[in-house]
């Protein structure tokens, strides 16, 4: 960000970093205050049981922030848990967050790739056929009105019944969610060329196929990348949801579920933060791909 010799860019970079830091600090502060308040009731209960009446405020606050199963764990408890389950555990261990993240990530990526391809194929069909435009689009939209939590167990059960198990059923739930933004965005992208550009192709007597490769597809790429950014984030959501009905064996979803079984709120929050971090990283990677591609095309 801080390009040497460009004071303006440096200033913008600095002020942006500053703004991000301020917001981050604010969130952490609110989190701590909320943790103290939410954990107060249980802490009072504990002291009452132990017959302790005189407790200093300092001790009380420290205690609320270091409970074993707090209503809301404090940020440092969550970070400590993440550190313990990533850096201090072997990645092959069932208790390693890296292991569980990898399970979820691989499901996400498989689901995302299939979803993106499906979305592109649907968009191509829709753009080239009036009949398919009229008949497919309503179903595509309807598919997203069904709550994913309701349909996810059905997909797992049905696929298991026909002998498909393991990663694929979970990935299909990612696909189910992620094909939608791609299909919609890509349809819009393939239709984005101006009338004048379409007329131009007609004056060259270009065939449908040539119009597609030389005009529609390049015009659609900015739209495709935008929808892929949405798709990869919800593909991760799909992967986590897909892990829930599989008996919570492995994956971030499994960590969330087992955490909630045993009231391990610290574990839940650490899985949650890891999922958020993973989603942010995936979106950032797609964004970098986007920028590199558009730059190479001379579009940015």
């Amino acid at each position, binding site marked *: 960000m801080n390009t040497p010799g460009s004071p303006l860019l440096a200033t913008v970079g600095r002020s942006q970093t500053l703004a991000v830091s301020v917001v981050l600090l604010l969130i952490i502060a609110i989190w701590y205050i909320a943790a103290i308040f939410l954990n107060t009731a249980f802490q009072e209960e504990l002291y009452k049981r132990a017959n302790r009446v005189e407790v200093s405020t300092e001790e009380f606050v420290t205690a609320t922030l270091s409970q074993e199963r707090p209503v809301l764990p404090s940020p440092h408890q969550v970070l400590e848990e993440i550190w313990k389950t990533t850096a201090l555990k072997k990645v092959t261990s069932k208790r390693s967050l890296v292991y569980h993240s990898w399970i979820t990530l691989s499901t996400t990526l498989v689901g995302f790739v299939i979803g993106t391809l499906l979305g592109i194929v649907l968009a191509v069909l829709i753009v080239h056929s009036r009949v398919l435009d009229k008949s497919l689009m309503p179903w595509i939209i309807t598919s997203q009105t069904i709550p994913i939590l309701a349909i996810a167990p059905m997909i797992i059960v049905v696929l298991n019944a026909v002998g498909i198990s393991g990663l694929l059923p979970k990935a299909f739930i990612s696909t189910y969610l992620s094909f939608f933004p791609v299909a919609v965005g890509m349809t819009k992208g393939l239709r984005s060329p*101006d009338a004048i550009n379409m007329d131009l*192709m*007609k004056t060259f*007597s270009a065939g449908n196929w040539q119009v597609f490769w*030389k005009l529609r597809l390049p015009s659609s790429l900015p739209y495709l990348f935008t929808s892929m950014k949405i798709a990869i984030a919800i593909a991760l959501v799909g992967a986590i949801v897909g892990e829930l009905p599989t008996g919570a064996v492995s994956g971030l979803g499994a960590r969330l579920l087992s955490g909630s079984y045993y009231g391990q709120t610290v574990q839940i929050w650490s899985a949650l933060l890891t999922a958020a971090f993973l989603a942010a990283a995936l979106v950032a990677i797609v964004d970098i791909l986007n920028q590199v591609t558009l730059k190479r095309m*001379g579009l940015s």
Partner: protein
Amino acid sequence: MLSAAEIEDGLEDAMQSSEPTINISELSLTFETNDGPVHALSEIDLSINHGDFVSFIGPSGCGKTTLLRVIADLEKPTAGSITVNGVTPENARLNRAYGYVFQAAALYPWRTIGKNIALPLEIMGLDRAEQKQRIERNLELVNLDGFERKYPWQLSGGMQQRASIARALAVDPDLLLMDEPFGALDEIVRDHLNEQLLKLWDKTNKTVVFVTHSIPEAVFLSTKIVVLCPRPGRIHEVIDCDLPRNRTLDIRETPEFLEIAHRVREGLRAGHSYEDV
């Protein structure tokens, strides 16, 4: 699709015979809209000979662009007949008989100038060497040599429009259809490009059909000026413009030039073009 040999035969036939390059008779075009039919073109009779530079002039809504689009097979007439190079506009389009220059340059932003000019050549399926040769030749023709590797956004509006003319010429058509190509440019650039276009026409001996709403531009460029008037779009008058072929901008001060410009203006006025302005 026709083979290259057949296309060449067609072109030769069109040139050898005394038949006009474009022949339009009793042509009408009615658009059906929600507010009822709109008569965009009504009873058009016109013939354009090989090597002519014909301008369509008239106020907005007179159908001048629509008429050009009918010639290019971008619109279908609802009545009457039209031939381009002796065949239907559709066949002429499939033969790639014309190059079309739009109001906007319509260059693809993801292609360099050279690649933009190569676009119709790729579609025609020409080999690389031939493409390269045609790109160079046509860039030179519009004075853009050296800009092959630049992207459109790196060029000024006038240069972009010149690149789009080079793209139209790259197909090597006998006929050039131009729809207000310089309408969005400032007057100084426009004058300059008009002069260049005239030189190009003189050098290549192509037939040009040019849509404009500028009287001086029409008189300066044309051998024939077609004055159209609106509601319904029809030809009011065809004015011959017999100024010498190699014109320079100075000619606009001569009495002959002013005389023709005056006749065009009178024609536009008589066509009631200004009645509701």
